[in-house]
């Protein structure tokens, strides 16, 4: 049976180093399988995070040969095994131990986002067209692996930006809420100021690593930038767009002018 070498980062907040583990190669395995075999053998206390082992929960993110990937969805036979396979924790987040990082930053940002705020349901319940929910559905595929956050240079190299920058995962969350046919909250101010959308210079690194193939920049960030910057502080323009997108439905009661927009309602078929 052939052998391979796993070069795994071991350490804690104080520091650490790579350790080599020579392991027999087994057909069909993914990186997480080999990590599990290391745990069951030479390093029982090797820390790694995982849950589903099916690419569905987004727990097992790590940097494999320098690229953020899900350990449970990266097959060993697609990696060059003449060289050691290098497995390191995500760099943007503080290390807890070995491959496990402290991702609480993301949970804090999530708490700050103004929540989904629907209008009252019409008699007979809400109706939404499939084509109107599809944009939001693309973003809701997000498994919160935080690899887009990991790779974004705005916070990867600048710890200090974390207070002012929500990161790509949350830009698509904001876009998802904004394009939700039932939501009526205006988050433009939040998106500009609190979430720091302006820091993003559209390098598209986030899109490249997304395991769910969400088009984070093209479908999320870029349209969001247009919306936030073009229409900043002009409630009528903002409202008009919302109504066009939503179809013939009474516009937001949260925005002061909402009731008096019959013209906009007519443009709904556009």
């Amino acid at each position, binding site marked *: 049976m052939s052998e391979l070498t796993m070069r795994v980062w071991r350490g*804690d907040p104080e520091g650490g180093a790579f350790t080599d583990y020579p392991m027999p190669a*087994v*057909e*069909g*395995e*993914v990186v997480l*399988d080999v990590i599990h075999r290391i*745990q*069951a053998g030479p390093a*029982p*206390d*090797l*820390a*790694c*995070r*995982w*849950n*589903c*082992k*099916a*690419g*569905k*929960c*987004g*727990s097992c993110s790590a940097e494999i040969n320098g690229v953020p990937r899900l350990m449970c*969805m990266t*097959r060993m036979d697609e990696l060059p095994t003449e060289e050691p396979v290098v497995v390191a924790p995500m760099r943007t987040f503080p290390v*807890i*131990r*070995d491959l*496990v990082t*402290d*991702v609480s930053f993301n*949970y804090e940002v*999530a*708490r700050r986002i103004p*929540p*989904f705020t*629907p209008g009252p*349901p019409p008699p007979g*319940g*809400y*109706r*939404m*067209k*499939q084509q109107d*929910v599809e944009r*939001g*559905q693309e973003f*809701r*595929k*997000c*498994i*919160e692996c935080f690899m887009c956050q990991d790779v974004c240079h705005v916070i990867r190299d600048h710890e200090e930006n974390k207070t002012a920058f929500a990161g790509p995962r949350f830009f698509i969350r904001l876009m998802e*809420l904004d394009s*939700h046919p*039932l*939501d009526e909250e205006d988050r433009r101010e939040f998106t500009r100021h609190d979430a720091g959308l302006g820091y993003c210079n559209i390098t598209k690194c986030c899109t490249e690593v997304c395991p769910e193939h969400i088009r984070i920049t093209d479908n999320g960030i870029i349209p969001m930038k247009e919306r936030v910057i073009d229409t900043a502080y002009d409630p009528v323009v903002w409202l008009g767009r919302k109504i066009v997108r939503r179809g013939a439905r009474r516009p937001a009661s949260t925005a002061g002018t909402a009731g008096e927009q019959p013209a906009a309602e007519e443009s709904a078929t556009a």
Partner: protein
Amino acid sequence: MPEYESHEYDVIVIGAGGAGLRAAIEAKERGLRTALVCKSLLGKAHTVMAEGGAAAAMGNVWPEDNWQVHFRDTMRGGKLLNNWRMAQLHAQEAPDRIYELERWGALFDRTADGRILQRDFGGHRYARLAHVGDRTGLEMIRTLQQRAVALDVDVYMECKVLRLLKDAEGRVSGAIAYWRASGDYVEFRAKAVVVATGSVGKSWLYTSNSWESTGDGHAMALWAGADVIDMECIQFHPTGMVWPLSVRGILVTEGVRGDGGVLRNSEGARFMFDYIPAMFAAETADSEAEADRWYEDHLHNRRPPELLPRDEVARSINSEVKAGRGGPHGGVFLDIASRRSAEYIRRRLPSMYHQFKELAGVDITAEPMEVGPTCHYIMGGIRVDADTEATTVPGLFAAGEVAAGLHGANRLGGNSLSDLLVFGRRAGMAAADFAEGRSGAPSPEAGDVERALSDAEAPFGREGGESPYDLHQSLQRTMQALVGIIRTESELVEALEELDELDDRATRVSVTGGRVYNPGWNLATDLPSMLTVSRLVAKGALERRESRGGHTRDDYPKADPELGKVNFVQRLGSGGEFTIAPEPLPEMPPELQRLLEEEHS
């Protein structure tokens, strides 16, 4: 004794899957001090993996559907071992719970007229599963997570509960846990506790379950004095991946069959036509032509046999493979490629497409998948009151997969996600009522905390003992080989003997390193629950001398009408020994009885 921090709440909920999140939302909305404790990160619980959908008789696709039909399907699917009242509440309330998710932001797939679309699944008479492609669990968990966050529920994540705590009067009064990131201990004092810890699959070698499914809640409740019932009723899902070995057990959603996929053996035959049981003969197609017409016209055709309840399909696959008609890796073939267009398959089943492409190198739009049964779900669990989810111990409630009753001897696909919502909410309400009615601060007995901490610390004090990983593997091998899909007395007796040995080995487990994010130690603290639950399953399986739903005995191949009237109840005896006895099922009122007897064409 190590130090520990302490927090006081009105209600704590252990588990942040669908059931736990829904319970916490309910208690928090009532204005109670509420905490949610889970052993993974928030949003990663096993529920996230659910694919096919949530069953609710909304009648959006088939107006003929209603709660009575859903009730009937659930009871028949469960081989009438269900708690009738739970089946009734579930069927009645599921639609409201789905619409509630929509009010909280969920984006389900839509019908042409803009309502929530519903899909076909095994054992459901009408297309009934609200869904989002094949990632319904993700949509549900994210919606509930975001709702809980909006309500500002306190979340303790990566925090593993070891034991429940009781006060001097025997009321559950909190729990003792540790933070995985620091290894520090935490005590929760609470007036009411909801257990929503999910499944037990990690005691088997091939399972669709995530690592969290170690049966902690089942074991904790039992240790605290609660009754558990029908632990032998385990669902082996008919279609798990079989190859490569490292992914063996990962689920292939029933949605593949609901959307037109069929099962074939190595000779290319649709063998399910040979395995239609009498109970379902009247409603199952007996020719391929009729089965194929059913997808378009449910009213004039009977359903394909591939969509029989899961226990039937899993057993049939098992028989085909045993008869030498299996595939190269011991499975059978699930074929949708020859039946639907590539575009349709990619749109309806995107995660399945990726899963096979990435993990097995198989393109499911061009070739069949090889599949076989995998340990998937436990119908048995903590005994609860149907309306309140109260266990037999005051102050303790249970909801979701950890609780028993709704699904009887076999669960229909899609009935779990709706179960989580209906009974998660009810558990949250009842726990809130209980907390409000309880005066004084909760005061757990100090002795319980001490015992739990010294047990948790013990593996550090031993050197060169058993590896927790080895012990886990031995347990999985035992359960897979001896308490699997087909059971027999001699093997179950052997399993119990092996479990004695494994219990003994568990007293010698040792771990290296410290408490900070140490998976070896974490596993060592999961082992007592896994061993406890495995014993409950093996004992239940030995006692139930019949075949019913997810419990199949080679030596008692038929259902015994007398045993169909009892739950097997297990609890701890005064000396700490496990006791088991049959107790009669709650009696069903005649008007519901009639619903079951009504013949539908």
